[in-house]
Structures are given as structure tokens and as C-alpha cells.
């Protein structure tokens, strides 16, 4: 039965997270972007809400209430506060969800409880590579089997790297043995590995991006990093494609939240900024731009929810996730650009939020799995 109403529990989560975003995240968004330092107090406070823990398995002390729809609702509200801080807050899921989905009991018991401790522990997922021709389904980072170990080789970027993290998940191209390790990577052999941050041969270089100033990210070099064969998660190609879908749905939801923030601040500004004796919102050129923003945001959100609902039903959601993802990438840019425009010259100034929104959403065309549902 078609229904667009979040259930009671979801409604409560939305309200709670929205208030948190409004009272805690938004006030520090600008400063966080400028300094590049995540607001530890805010992240800790968000951690106490248990947003990620609630979705982790009960066996390890989590809430066992994993839902892509709920995850999307949370991501939108947090990102409405600020995208970078939202991604920091949600980062434990980058380690937690792949381990919960594909880890063995030993991995779950080792890694998951820490993510639910009273102190915040971030997670990391390395998927994107620093090449203009990067294909998420055909990474060039390789994992080559060598006896009881895998040897990881390659480069990753846009890897969230908050202080205090211990492990990361790496998506690589798996190869059977050293014998065939030369030549271009074959496609269709995605594999995921849990790697400690301090593994020998793993070098992390802080990154500077156009946006996401408040989210510490690194470029990683894997120089013959050796990990035990047991650190490979039990996930095949299809599983990891779904993981990518989950990343897209989560990010698309965050994109909707970011766009909504840009839209709302520009709508409020348009009502108070006067030119030629009238608020600019009374001019159609401005009012219609705002109307289109509202329409596109709602349309994109419904695409995100539809894809999330398909994930929750256990269906192959790759097409729907792609549609949602494409739509959000496109409209978020349109909305944020429109917001800067509504602010005029002030939109260009870093005292106001729209330029931050614009820089943040411009990344959606290259982001993958910076969050998961």
C-alpha cells in the first residue's frame, strides 16, 4: 500500500535528529568547515543518540534495527545541519555495516562492540581512487592472494579519517595469486578487507577538497600491505555492488538534506532582503527559483525513499539507487547554485552558508560510500 508517512518511531527519530542538527550541528557548521576540525563535543553528543548503534546487530550489543529508510531519514536531517559533520557522525557505520553484513563472528566480536562504546570511535571505508577514470566497480587497487595473506596495492582517496579510528574497510580488486598479478585488473572481482590503520605499508596523507572541509579525509597509499586472509569479508561481487547501492542511497539522502538546507536559508533570506522597496521573494525570478527548488527536493527525496524501501525489502535496488543518486547529484547542485544566486554577492561570501552548500554538493559527482544505510 502506497504510503509516504514515516512510522511513529521514524517520526520520533526525525524530530530528535532534526533538533540536534538545528541546535548542535548548524551553529558550528561554518567554523568546522573553516578549521577542518570536527567538533568533538557535537560528535560525541550525537554518538550518545545511538544512531548507528541502533542499526548494528543485537548479538554485539546493537539495537538490531537496521533500515535503509530510517538511515536515509537520519542522513537527511543530519546533513541538513551540515554535511561534513553528518558524515563524521555516521562514520562508524562505514566499518560497522560491512562487518555486520559480511564479517564472521570473530570479526563482529572484535570490531563492533568498540563502535558502540560510550566513547565515539569513527570508522573508515576506502573505495574511491584518485584517478579521473575511476570506476567504482573496477578498482585498480588490488588484493593478491599470497599463501595465508593478501597483499594490497594501490591508492585510495576521499577516505574519512577521524581521530581515534582503528580499522578501515578497503574495497579492492581481488586476484587469485601472485602468479597472475601483472597486467590490467580483471573486472568483476570486488572484495572487501578489514585493515588496521597502522598496517605496515599503509600511508595516509591528509587531503584538501573543495568542500567537506569539516570532515578529515585522507589519500591512502597501499604499498604491499599484507593482511591475513581472514581479514577478507565474506562478500562477493553482488554483495559489494549492493554495498555501493547502500552508499548511494545514504549519500543521496544526505544530498537531499544539504539541498534542503540551502533552499531553506535562501528562502528565509529572500523574505527579508529588500530591493527596490520590496522583499526579493515577491519577485517571480526569485520566487519561482525557490518553488523549483522545493519541487525538486521533494521529488528527489521520494526517489531516495523508494530506493531505500527496495533495499529494505531485500530487492536489487541498483537501478533505483542509480536514479536517486543521479537525480540528487543534479538537483542538489542546481539548488545550491540557486541559493548562492538568491543571496547575490552575499552568497559568495563565507559569512553565509550557501557557498558552503555549493562546495559540498559539488562533490556528489565523485563521492561514493561516504555514508551507508
Amino acid at each position: 500500500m502506497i504510503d509516504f508517512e514515516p512510522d511513529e518511531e521514524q517520526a520520533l527519530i526525525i524530530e530528535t535528529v532534526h533538533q540536534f542538527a538545528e541546535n548542535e550541528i548548524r551553529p558550528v557548521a561554518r567554523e568546522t568547515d573553516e578549521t577542518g576540525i570536527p567538533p568533538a563535543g557535537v560528535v560525541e553528543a550525537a554518538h550518545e543518540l545511538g544512531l548507528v548503534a541502533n542499526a548494528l546487530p543485537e548479538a554485539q550489543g546493537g539495537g538490531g534495527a537496521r533500515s535503509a529508510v530510517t538511515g536515509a531519514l537520519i542522513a537527511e536531517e543530519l546533513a541538513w545541519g551540515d554535511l561534513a559533520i553528518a558524515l563524521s557522525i555516521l562514520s562508524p557505520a562505514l566499518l560497522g555495516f560491512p562487518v555486520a553484513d559480511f564479517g564472521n563472528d570473530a570479526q563482529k566480536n572484535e570490531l563492533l562492540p568498540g563502535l558502540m562504546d560510550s566513547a565515539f570511535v569513527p570508522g573508515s571505508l576506502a573505495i574511491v581512487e584518485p584517478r579521473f577514470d575511476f570506476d567504482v566497480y573496477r578498482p585498480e587497487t588490488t588484493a593478491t592472494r599470497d599463501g595465508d595473506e593478501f597483499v594490497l596495492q594501490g591508492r585510495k582517496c576521499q577516505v574519512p579519517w577521524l581521530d581515534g579510528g582503528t580499522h578501515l574497510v578497503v574495497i579492492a580488486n581481488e586476484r587469485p595469486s601472485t602468479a597472475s598479478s601483472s597486467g590490467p585488473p580483471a573486472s568483476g572481482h570486488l572484495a572487501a578487507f578489514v585493515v588496521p590503520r597502522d598496517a605496515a605499508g599503509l600511508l595516509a596523507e591528509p587531503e584538501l577538497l573543495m568542500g567537506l572541509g569539516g570532515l578529515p579525509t585522507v589519500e591512502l597509499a597501499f604499498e604491499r600491505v599484507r593482511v591475513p586472509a581472514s581479514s577478507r569479508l565474506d562478500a562477493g561481487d553482488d554483495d559489494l555492488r549492493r554495498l555501493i547501492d547502500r552508499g548511494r542511497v545514504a549519500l543521496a539522502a544526505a544530498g537531499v538534506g544539504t539541498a534542503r538546507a540551502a533552499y531553506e536559508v535562501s528562502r528565509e533570506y529572500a523574505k527579508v532582503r529588500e530591493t527596490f522597496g520590496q522583499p526579493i521573494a515577491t519577485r517571480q525570478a526569485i520566487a519561482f527559483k525557490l518553488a523549483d527548488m522545493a519541487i525538486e527536493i521533494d521529488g528527489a527525496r521520494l526517489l531516495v525513499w523508494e530506493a531505500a524501501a527496495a533495499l529494505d525489502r531485500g530487492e536489487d535496488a541498483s537501478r533505483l539507487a542509480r536514479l536517486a543518486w543521479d537525480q540528487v547529484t543534479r538537483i542538489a547542485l542546481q539548488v545550491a547554485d540557486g541559493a548562492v544566486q538568491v543571496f547575490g554577492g552575499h552568497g559568495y561570501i563565507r559569512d553565509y552558508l550557501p557557498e558552503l552548500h555549493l562546495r559540498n554538493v559539488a562533490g556528489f559527482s565523485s563521492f561514493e560510500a561516504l555514508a551507508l544505510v
Partner: protein
Amino acid sequence: MAIDFELSEGSKLAQAHYHDIALKQMRPISRKYDLREHDLPVEWVDYWWNEGRFGTKGRSEKLTEGFITICLQAEELCWGDAGLYLRMPTPALGGSAVSSAGTKEQKQRFMSKFREEGGHPIWGAMAITEPQAGSDAAAIETTADFDPDTEEWILNGTKIFCTAGEGASTADGGFVVVWATIDKSAGRGGIKSFVVMANTPGMELIGCEKKLGIRASDTATLRFDNCRVPKENLLGSAEVRKKDPTKTGDKGFKGAMATFDASRPIVAAMATGVGRAALDFLKEELENQGVAIRYDAPPRELTAIERDVIEMEAELQAARLLTWRAAWMMNTGKRNNLEASMAKAKAGLAVTKITQKAVQILGPVGYSKKLLVEKWMRDAKINDIYEGTQQINQLIVARRILDYPSAMLR
């Protein structure tokens, strides 16, 4: 309740049922009545009157989803042919007006004939637009004067662009809902709607328009020359609220406008159907040529066509979901004025672009009348115009999100 994107079983049945009708009854005569612009599509009208209108009765009645199902019907049948859809013998917009503004007695009196078995096909229509008043519906000049001796309203004026106006004004039992002012000095407050039964003396069918698309639909000009209608045919109350600067609107006019909250989602669904017809065809054609759309390819590797198709699909689905949301709000009794306009604005523009793109991608084949793609492009465009143009719906959305009365944003 909880967020859910699965249609009920009944809805799925209804969808399949109407799809079948679209495919078997509409598509085969789609081109025929595009070419024979003002002919009555007899086989379709008869089919609908004798069979089609009884719908999925007995099959899935209890399982349907109210307005969602109506939207599904509109989408499927307009996937078949939007012009023929508008030519169906139904109460159509006239019915929406009676349902939203009429009394119980009026609903019974005007609508029951559409439900009775047998008889001959009849139509309902709504006539608001005049030569000098389209988007600005409050500027209509058709007058209604009360004759206390006979207790009748006397209508005078000219209405244009009245969909189904030929059928509704000439087939006994049908009716046209006519907007007229009973007090010009009262502005919007003086505007009322009147049910004029087909063949009422003084209502004259002047003719039908030649159009870009939806050519199977009769878009009529109607003249009212001392056309007398009984007082019981006024929908709502005859009370005139004089312009009061402290009030931004009037219930009568607003009530009449509220018809659009119910009809805009349906128009958006109709639009979606036409857009989907073009998109389905395009994808099928590409598939025949061995072009599969790779939803999992990196953007850099997508061909221009794949990119276009993915965008078209996302746009169409966004329009559809906005439409379903507005319809779902009707079902749940939520006020959907904003959401109905959002859906209409999005769908009207999205399918205009989608069908134009389909013609473009298919090249000479898309442009040729051998296929229906060129027709779908012509049919699609009306959705960006009637039931409030793109701009008028943007205006409504803008007012609602800014919380501005109409005086502040026109």
C-alpha cells in the same frame, strides 16, 4: 503507517487492467483519431460507455487505493492515448467540481446518470476560461443574473477551450459546469459555478479548436446567450462576500479553486502516462538495437543516450512519486494544495522534456508519423499548459512555501 512504495494488490490489478485497455482499445486507433481531428471516436466512446466505465468491478474494488488508483488509471490510459482519455464519456472535471462544491442532492442529481447502465454516452465538462481570462480566472466576464420571477439564473458570456465541451453541451444528460460572476463589483467573491445541462436553450456550441496535440479531445467554444438555469443548479451558496481588505480570499472562489487540488494530481498522472509511453518505446527501440542501459556504469563511461535515458527515467519517476504523494494526501484527508501543484508543475515540464528528447534521440524515426512518438511529444505539451500553466503552479508553490498571500506574489 509507514513509508511504503508497494502498490496494493488491488492497485496492481487495476493497473494491469487499464494497461490492457490502453493496449487493446486505444493504441490501435490512436493515429486514426489524431488524423481525424474532430470526429467522434465511436468505437472508443462506445467501448467505454458499455464496458470500460464499469472498471474492475467485482475484481478488486475493495483493494484499490482511492486517488492513487485513479492516478494509475489516468497514467495507464494516457499511456494508451491522452486524447482518447479526455474523450471518454465521464463527468471529468465537471464531476470534480460537483463533487467538491455540490450538495449531496446535487451530486446525486448530476452524477447518477454516469453510473446507470444502458442509455447513451454522456460527458461532463468545466468551463472557466474565456478569451480574456485564462490564468487569471478571477477576470472572467460571463455573468449570471437572478430572475426572481422564475427563480432562474440567466447566463451570458463566452467560454473557450472547454475540454469535452462538445459532448457535454450536446448529449442529453451531460452537463457543463460554468463559472460566472453574479456580482462584478465583488471581484472573486462574486464568482460562482453553475451546472448547465446539455442542450439547455441559450447554450450554443460554436465549434472546436484545431490543436497541436490531443486532437481526439473536443476543445469547445461555448456561447451563453440568456441561458437560463434553475436556481438549484448553482454549486455552493449564492451569498456574495464583498471584498474585505482584511480577508485575502473568499470561500466561494476558493472552494471552486479547490477542485484543482483533486484534479491536478490526475493531470500529473496523465502527463506521466504520455511521458512513459515515449520512454517505454525509446527503451524498447534501443534494446532492439542492442543498446542496454547500464545503470551501474561510471558516469564517464555512459554513452550520451544512456545518460539521457537515466535522466529521463529519474525525472519521470520523480514526477510520478510527487503525484502519488499528492493523491495519497487526498486519501488521508490531508490538505494537498501545495503538493498537487508541485506534482503538476513537475510532471508537466518533465514529460514535455522527455517526449521532446525521445523525438530527438530517435531522429527521423521519431519525427515520422509512422510511429506515435511525434504524437506523444505533441500530446505531452498540453500538460504544461492546462490546469494552471507551469508558471501558475510555480506561483502557487512559491506562495505556499513563502507563506505569502496572492497579493504579495502575482
